């Protein structure tokens, strides 16, 4: 199968999960089909009596024209945007919908299955704002589950799909299939993912379950931060900056390696009574008076998903640490 060979050779630029899926499909329909490198298959109809012609293998693979397969040239079914964007996660669901609806009438059954699988995968990706590798892996796992389901229920599904001409998002087993509930579900998943991210951000929220409690914690935390900042700005107004106050001084401190600092008493701070683990004693000691111990923001940001993706650039923590210690070393003196 040319397409399959091409797929294998283009391993570097395609999504692994799609490739694996396709191989599984091919194997399912043609048990004797072993290695994709076995050689060129001149006649695409050899596989499964023509039902699984080149479309399946090329479905979703951006194959070059080298192989000269008509499948790629004639009907640009799935070959273009979906797969290339699958890995990046910058995919827009709407674009895909219009593209596929155009090609819809010409598609064959198995191809539709591929489309629905991929579309669901992609819709999940978009909706869940797949910016981090963690969620990409989640998507792949879901896709694999779908694949297994697909190979089991293929006959059922194909019959369903024949009835209408639209692309359906594949609903998972045991769940409602109408578009509203799927959209609802996607939205709910988005929201819960954001809540999880916030849970990591706000100290002391690991044990709280439920949206209401979490929101409470978040509100309290934000209020306390705002109050502290107000207090600090008042303090700043009181403390006159020295005439020779130099910006460089802030950046110019000795690097202090985690020394415990004395707590600065501050009667105006609200002691909110939160108890947390100290991770970086470099600044957690400062925060003691406010009742919050701050986990190193860098570590938190690295595990975050989309909302703070701009803060998540994979820099080595050591650089941040040295910078921060540089910046706030005076606090330890």
């Amino acid at each position, binding site marked *: 199968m040319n397409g399959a060979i091409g797929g294998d050779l283009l391993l570097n630029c395609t999504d692994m999960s799609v490739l694996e899926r396709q191989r599984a499909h091919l194997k399912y329909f043609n048990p004797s089909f072993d290695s994709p490198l076995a050689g060129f298959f001149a006649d695409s109809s050899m596989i499964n009596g023509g039902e699984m012609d080149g479309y399946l293998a090329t479905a979703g693979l951006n194959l070059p024209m080298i192989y000269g397969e008509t499948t790629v040239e004639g009907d640009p079914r799935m070959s273009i945007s979906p797969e290339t964007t699958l890995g990046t996660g910058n995919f827009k669901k709407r674009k895909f919908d219009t593209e596929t609806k155009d090609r819809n009438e010409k598609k064959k059954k198995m191809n539709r299955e591929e489309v629905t699988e991929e579309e669901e995968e992609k819709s999940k990706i978009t909706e869940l704002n797949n910016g981090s590798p963690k969620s990409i892996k989640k998507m792949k796992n879901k896709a694999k589950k779908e694949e297994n389901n697909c190979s089991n229920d293929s006959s059922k599904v194909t019959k369903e799909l024949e009835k209408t001409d639209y692309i359906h998002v594949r609903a998972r087993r045991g769940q409602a299939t109408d578009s509203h509930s799927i959209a609802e579900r996607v939205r709910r998943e988005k929201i819960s993912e954001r809540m999880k991210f916030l849970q990591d951000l706000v100290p002391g929220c690991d044990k709280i379950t439920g949206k209401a409690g979490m929101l409470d914690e978040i509100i309290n935390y934000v209020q306390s*931060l705002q109050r502290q900042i107000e207090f600090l700005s008042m303090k700043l107004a009181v403390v006159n900056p020295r005439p020779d*106050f130099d910006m460089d001084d802030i950046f110019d401190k000795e690097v202090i390696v985690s020394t415990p600092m004395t707590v600065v008493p501050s009667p105006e701070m609200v002691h909110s009574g939160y108890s947390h683990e100290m991770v970086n004693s470099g600044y957690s000691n*400062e925060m003691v008076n406010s009742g919050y111990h701050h986990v190193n923001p860098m570590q938190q940001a690295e595990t975050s998903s989309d909302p703070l993706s701009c803060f998540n650039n994979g820099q080595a923590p050591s*650089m941040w640490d040295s910078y921060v210690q540089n910046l706030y070393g005076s606090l330890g003196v």
Partner: protein
Amino acid sequence: MERQIINKRKRVFSLQPNKNPKALFARRYVSHLVPALKKINMKKSSSKTNHPSFEKTVKHEVDMAFALSAQEFAWSRFLLQKLLSSVHDDPVRTSSSPSEILERSSKKQGGGKHQDRDEEEGGEIKKRLKELQKLLPGGEEMNMEEILSEIGSYIVCLELQMIVLKSIVQDNIS
């Protein structure tokens, strides 16, 4: 004095200062705030100002620096608008007008079967979301999802701002 000399010798540079967004924020913040403070200080020394308005000016500058250093986020744009429009007034707190968008979006929640439980829970959550909207600059115009995403960045920037302010204050005390 000596300490300053010693400190200058041990300066540590970060290799890619503009790539780490948190460092970038902190740096921008400092670069906005410090000159503003110096200006205020000069004005103060030249003319006698009473404390309340001076504090307000400082607070205003602090907020301005905050909003200017985080232009990537929606809340910072809202905050900037607010600050620019209220330059001569008292510092503005987020208004507490109810949000219709929020109510609409929460009404859509909840399937048919679990409506009762969801309604109660939805009510609780609605209340809290309203609170959150008040806290976040520009929160009134956002629906639930947007609030949740913006709040994350807001919290991190607040934390960074606090660190910088503490360091400045500490610097001036010692």
